[in-house]
C-alpha cells in the first residue's frame, strides 16, 4: 500500500491483480453486461490509486478488511455512475454460460450452483430495483446513502427494496418449490 501511495507501478500492479477478482464480483452484480464490467472495474481502480493517499487504514492491524471495504465502496460508486449514465435502462438478453466457472470440481459445488442462481436472479431485477437491493442487502449502504447516490428519495429506495425482495421471493418459490431454502 505504501508503494501504491508512492505511485510505484509494480506495487500498483500487484494490488490490481490481487483484488481484481474481488472488484469484478462486486461490479458484475450491478452491471448486467459481462463485457462492460472490466472497463468499470478498471475505472474503479484508477479512482482507487488516485485517492489512495486518503486511505486511513494504513499501518493498522486490520488494514486489509478496511482496504476491502474501501475497494467495495469505490467499485459500487463507479458502477452506480455507469448505471446513471445509462439512465438505469434495463438490459435485454441473457447471461451466457461462458461467464461462469465450472463448479463441479469444487467440494461445495451445490452451494456454488445455488449462489450462481441467486446472483443471476438479482441481475435479472430491473436496474433501479437491483441497484437498491445490492446496495442495501449485500453492500450495507443505508437508505439515505442509496437515495443520495441514486438521486432518489429515501421512500423510493425503501419501496424499491421491498419490491425487489418480493420479486426475488416469487422467483425463488417458483424455481425451488420444495427446496427448503429457508422457506423462501
Amino acid at each position: 500500500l505504501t508503494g501504491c501511495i508512492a505511485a510505484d507501478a509494480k506495487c500498483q500492479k500487484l494490488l490490481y491483480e490481487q483484488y481484481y477478482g474481488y472488484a469484478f464480483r462486486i461490479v458484475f452484480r450491478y452491471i448486467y453486461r459481462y463485457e462492460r464490467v472490466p472497463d468499470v472495474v478498471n475505472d474503479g481502480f484508477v479512482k482507487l490509486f488516485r485517492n489512495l493517499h486518503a486511505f486511513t487504514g494504513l499501518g493498522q492491524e486490520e488494514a486489509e478488511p478496511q482496504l476491502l471495504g474501501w475497494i467495495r465502496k469505490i467499485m459500487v460508486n463507479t458502477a452506480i455512475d455507469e448505471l446513471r449514465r445509462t439512465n438505469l435502462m434495463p438490459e435485454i438478453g441473457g447471461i451466457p454460460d461462458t461467464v461462469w466457472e465450472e463448479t463441479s470440481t469444487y467440494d461445495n459445488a451445490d452451494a456454488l450452483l445455488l449462489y450462481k442462481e441467486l446472483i443471476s436472479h438479482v441481475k435479472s431485477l430491473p436496474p433501479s430495483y437491483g441497484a437498491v437491493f445490492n446496495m442495501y442487502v449485500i453492500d450495507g449502504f443505508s437508505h439515505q446513502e442509496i437515495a443520495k447516490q441514486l438521486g432518489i428519495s429515501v421512500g423510493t429506495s425503501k419501496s424499491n427494496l421491498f419490491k425487489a425482495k418480493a420479486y426475488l421471493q416469487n422467483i425463488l418459490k417458483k424455481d425451488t418449490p420444495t427446496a427448503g431454502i429457508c422457506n423462501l
Partner: protein
Amino acid sequence: MQPLNHDMDELMRKAAADYPVKPQGADWQKVAQQLQTPSPEPVTKKGYGGLKKLLLIFPFLLAAFVCDRYFPYQRGVFEKHTAAKVPQANTNGEGSKTKAPGSSVTRPVLQPAASATEMVGKQLTFMPHDKRGQTGGDITAAPSTKGLPKSMGVLKSSENYGPANVEWKRRYAPGADYLATAPVLQKVHVVTVPYNGINNTPKKSTTEKNNPRLKKLYLTLLAGPDISRVKGQRLEAPGYSVGVLFGYRFAKHWLVESGLYWDRKNYYSKGDYFKTDKIYLPYNSKILEVEGYCDMFEIPVNARFYAVQKPRSALVVSAGLSSYLMQKEDYTYAYERYNTVYSSTKYYRKASKDWFSIANISVAYEQRLGRSTFRLEPYIKRPLRGVGIGALPLSSAGVLVGLTHPIR
C-alpha cells in the same frame, strides 16, 4: 416474514462473496495508461456571481436615475405654460421687478394690482410651494379670466383681508418692515390649492394624444427566427423566438422593457467548449462533438433609447441583459473512450437557470400603424458566461418582428 428476510439477506451476502464468475478482462496496461494522464481538476465556483450581476445592472440603474432626474418626461410643460401666461396676467404690474424696501437686492417681487379684498371671486394661479420664488411671477392676479386655464384657483373667503402686498413682502422681501404689520398678517388667509389637484398640462393636440410612443405603458408581441452558434463554429438550422414584452417610458427618450420569450435554439459545438461537470459520462471519456437544441424561457431586461424620433417612425437603440431558464436540452454526443468513439443521445429537463448571463444589443425600427406600432428589431446576444448544462458560450442573432400596443 422478518426472520425469513434476514435469512435471505444472509444467503445473498454469502452468494455475492462466493458466486462462481470468471473475472476476465484484467488489463493493467489500460489502468497504468490512465494513471499517467493527469486527473481532471475539480471545478471550484467563485463566490462573486451575485456581485458581478449587480455590477452589470448598475450602469442601467445609473442611466435610468440620471435620465429620470435630469430629463424628466414632459416636466417642462408646466413652466412653459406659466411663463407664457405671466406677462398677460400682470397687466397692472408696472415692472415686474421692484426693489424691496430696506433691501439692497433687487428681487423679483410682484406688485398686486389690487388688495386681496378686491380680488375675491377672481381667478388666481397658485404655484406649488416648492416652485414659488423660482419663476419670478408665481402668484398672478388676473383682472380678466379670459385666456386663463380652468385649473386656476378661486379665492373663496372675503373677510378681513389685509393689504395684499404684505404677503408678498413677507415672502420675497425679508428686509422690509413687514414686522410692523404683523397683526394684520394674522388675518390674511391664503387659499392654496394642492399641487396635484391642478391640471397644469396643456391640452394636447390630437396627434400627440393618439401617438402610441407617448404612452407610458405598452405591450409588445414579438416573434422571429434565431440563429445560434458557439464560438464562431458551424451554424445549425435556425430556431425561433416568440414572446411578449411590457415596456415603461420613464423619460422622454428612455424606456425600460421586460417580459418573457420562448426560445428554441439549435447549435453545434466541439467538445472543448462543453463542460461535463453536470453530466454523467463514463470515466475516462472525452466528448468530441455535441449537436443539439434547447427550449427555454428567456427573461430580457432592456433599456431602450429613442435615437431618432419622427412623427410616424422612430429608431430605437436597446441594450440589456437576459436570463435563460432552460426547459429542455437535447444533445447528441460523440465521445471517445479508450480510443473508441461512441455516440449517445441525452436530454435534460430544467437543468439550469442562467440569470443575467446574456448581453443583448439591438436596433429597432418602429413604424406607427394607427394606435399600434410595428417593430422590426435585429438583435445580437452575446454570452457573459456559459449557459445550459454544458455551460456553452452561446451567441445568438436574429430579427424580431412585432406589434406594440399602448396600455396606458
